């Protein structure tokens, strides 16, 4: 049997295996092809496929198909994860120039880049001269800056860096395509940078879940090179677990394909799929959860509780959420952009059926925590003052069952008198089964 056609963990680097994202690719290339050679900012959560998309964009044959000939356009990919607290603008530029030299097929550009590579006095003006000469050579440079938040959150990069970079982009045949987890303006370490005009040269392009057509194409296209066929029930199971999320689809399909290689029966394959998917997904769920603010955690928890109630459809409407948390709507939109919530026929569900039990497990207290609740209650009188009166009784009863870390969050959530009853009731009916 052939090698497993599904991969996860590393970004897709083979353009033949890259699926979907037609719209985003068109937008980015379209902006690079226009008269002003415009920059774009790609925004998407971890594992959504930003680096795979960068690899695809940087492929010379792909670029050529879109009218950006490799002999005229130098694409420089830089993974900014390596920018740490010891690195400042000068070192970053040295590194970018080195990458530019290495990744350029044009000799003149490489020769120009090397002139400044080790220059310790390198400043925007010197770079301006460099890009002026590159313009003169008829060359265009595109920096694909992956994980740009490593710059925006780094205090070594002050306003001057952004002003200078913007100036270079505006005046020369230089364009940037950045990727980040959140919008760049949300990630800045200072107000001075936030208010700089740097960010207004970008168009914001959100990278979310696959369309269902692309998700389906990913599975069928990958299997077409093999003898394995997933049954409809298996594909349904894959979608239930992974949703149209590119990373989790690959992970689920990889596991399932391996089970096929072992000649296991369908029932056994499905069982393995569920078990292994949970193991694979857990650290990523933890990462998404850890990178969610309080409101997002509240909405995710409410969504998880509602899903438990509506199994197997596990869908809920905005008004269902609103009844539990009045300020849910903007957060739902945010979670949808992140790919954690997915719209289904006018309703919503969490993108993966495995996410809901994971969330409920997170917020449910261990026995030992339940036993120390009275102590916690005494120590947190100020917080618990927010849930007073008879109406709050059910919530006070459920609070010991909430993990210590999340009690404050639940109080924040339930402190609205309009929704406290509904929240307590839902928590009460769901948490009994969580552990």
């Amino acid at each position, binding site marked *: 049997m052939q090698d497993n056609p599904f991969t996860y963990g590393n970004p897709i680097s083979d353009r033949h295996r890259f699926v979907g994202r*037609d719209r985003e690719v068109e937008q980015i290339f379209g902006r690079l092809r226009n*008269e*002003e050679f415009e920059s774009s900012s790609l925004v998407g959560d971890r594992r959504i496929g930003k680096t795979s998309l960068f690899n695809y964009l940087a492929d010379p044959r792909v670029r050529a198909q879109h009218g950006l000939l490799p002999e005229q356009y130098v694409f420089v990919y830089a993974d900014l994860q390596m920018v740490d607290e010891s690195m400042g603008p000068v070192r970053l530029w040295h590194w970018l120039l080195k990458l530019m030299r290495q990744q350029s097929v044009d000799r003149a550009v490489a020769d120009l880049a090397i002139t400044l590579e080790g220059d310790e006095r390198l400043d925007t*003006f010197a770079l301006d001269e460099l890009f002026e000469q590159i313009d003169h050579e008829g060359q265009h440079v595109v920096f694909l800056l992956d994980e740009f938040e490593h710059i925006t959150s780094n205090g070594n990069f002050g306003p001057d860096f952004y002003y200078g970079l913007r*100036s270079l982009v505006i005046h020369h045949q230089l364009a940037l395509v950045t990727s980040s987890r959140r919008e760049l303006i949300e990630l800045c370490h200072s107000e001075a940078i936030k208010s700089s005009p740097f960010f207004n040269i970008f168009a914001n392009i959100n990278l979310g879940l696959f369309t269902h057509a692309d998700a389906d194409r990913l599975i069928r296209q990958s299997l077409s090179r093999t003898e394995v066929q997933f049954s409809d029930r298996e594909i349904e199971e894959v979608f239930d677990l992974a949703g149209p999320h590119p990373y989790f689809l690959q992970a689920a399909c990889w596991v399932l394909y391996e089970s096929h290689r072992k000649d296991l029966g369908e029932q056994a394959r499905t069982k393995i799929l569920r078990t292994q998917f949970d193991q694979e997904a857990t650290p990523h769920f933890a990462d998404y959860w850890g990178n969610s603010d309080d409101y997002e955690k509240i909405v995710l928890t409410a969504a998880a509780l509602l899903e438990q109630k509506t199994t197997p459809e596990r869908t809920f409407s905005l008004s269902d959420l609103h009844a539990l948390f009045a300020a849910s709507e903007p957060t739902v939109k945010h979670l949808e952009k992140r790919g954690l919530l997915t719209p289904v026929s006018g309703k919503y569900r969490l993108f993966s059926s495995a996410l809901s039990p994971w969330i409920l497990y997170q917020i449910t207290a261990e026995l030992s925590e339940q036993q120390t609740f009275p102590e916690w209650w005494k120590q947190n009188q100020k917080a618990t003052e927010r849930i007073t009166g008879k109406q709050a009784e059910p919530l006070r009863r459920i609070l010991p069952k909430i993990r210590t870390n999340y009690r404050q969050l639940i109080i924040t959530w339930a402190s609205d008198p309009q929704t406290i009853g509904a929240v307590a009731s839902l928590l009460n009916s769901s948490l009994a089964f969580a552990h």
Partner: protein
Amino acid sequence: MDATRPVNPYIAGSPVTGTEMFFGREDVFSFVRRNLTGRHRDTPIVLYGQRRTGKTSVLYQMHRHLDPRYRCIFIDPHGLNLNGIENLLWGLATSIRRGLQRDHQLSVAVPDRAAFAASPHTAFETTFLDAVWSILGQDHLVLMIDEVVRLHEEVRAGRLEREVFDYLRHLMQHFERLNFVFSLGSGVEEMRKDYAFLFGVALYHRISFLEPAAARALITQPAQDCYQVMPDGVEKILQITSGHPYYTQLVCHCLFDRWLRAPKPQVTSADADAVLPEAIELGSANLTYVWEDSTPEEQAMMAGMAAAMPAGDSAATADQIREVWHKAGVRLPAGQAATAARNLTAREVVVASNGSYSFAIYLQRLWLDKHRRLDWVKEELEEPSRKWSEEPEQKRDRSAKAETSAGDKPPHRQRSRVSPWAATLAAVGAGILALIVVIIVLSSSNSHSTASSNSHSTAGAPKKIGSSAASSSATTPAPPAQAKYTLGKTYATTQDTSCNAGTNDATITVTAVHTTTSPDGTPPENGNFMIATVTVKEGYSGVRDVMRNLSSPTACRHKRMACSRKD
């Protein structure tokens, strides 16, 4: 995508450097042409306007609109080392050398950096500029310094000597063929105050929304080989963007993308409606910035406006806006609302008319609907709203008077908020009958003023620059084009906040407020100031002269000039 497919020509982000995607602004070029050669030729020109209104693009186009004897050099301070005057002057010299070489095929040498370090003025002025004049012959050198506020920021940060501005003034006065055009997006008022010798005497021209004809051309012409934008589509885009250059380009960019996905011969208003969510997403950084750059009071006004006008394109009064907040359990004091409304109007986020407010850019309202609805931001504004609820009645009553003129008398927008001084001044100004003095002397001495131009360009619709004490329906007829003002004659004396001019016969009302304030900047008592108002027809060219004359040798320490537009 096939490489042979048409390229989306619309530019949503970068300045427009080419000619094909640049439309309008003849008023700006005419203003610059006139003043480079007229009697104010030794005076710096300042092109100012809100972020994203196309100041940099205008500078890029300038050389195409001036006599070729005026050699334009674009200077971007963002790309210069501003650490000390020696670095600045070296950077300026090098930029000039490069510009002359690249755009004018003229070669000139720049002294090395050591010469600038040893004696920056000598290196720049004696050695470098002398060499420049020798190759230019009788031609002029026009230095166009984009976002000159960067120099001020560096002065404030202690990295650049304050004297740099004195030196620029010195250059202007001593080199007849050296002209300066500055652009400013923020800090206008501060620059005028801190460097009065330079920015107090400058000739100002506002860059704002595109004229309707230019906006229509931008909407229809770049795409005409692919599709026709039907009249309802054009009107829809104008309604959404009000002819704001960036947002017009943005919506058209999305429309073109939509056409690429499903080509058809004509696009309509339905297509424009369909691309709005994408336009909001692509333009997110700019739409978010408007919110982030606002005070809590301004944010409350915006969210309140959106909530108070559910029909979409209607306007809301300050009372209606405060009422929606009241229903949400938040008291937004009248004075705070009035100040916020004035600031938002000055920033061209909001349009004020007859005491009602609407969004200048409909996209901003859609963004608010999507991201910052009133009930969502209530918590965000919890802390300031506590302060509002504690504000004493007396203060509110006093400020409430200013509300009657909200939006009509905004100062030049700067990053800092309108001062309490300005708010109180407006209140006092509205409280007394304004003494309006305008003197009109017909003159045709300045041949360049014959061009149809005014110092304030806004989108199509009526324009207004003025105060509550001004009257757009002034009884005195508007002065003809080519007029020049001098002091000494009463022009109009009514008090009216309305601005009802029609599209093609717009009224401009200019108000200059002069006052003798106390040294600590507190507001003057009644009677210590004068408001001068001029009402002129659109296209009138002498607005700056009014301001110049009124700012001349009186005992005035402050002047406010403001613009707002109204649909």
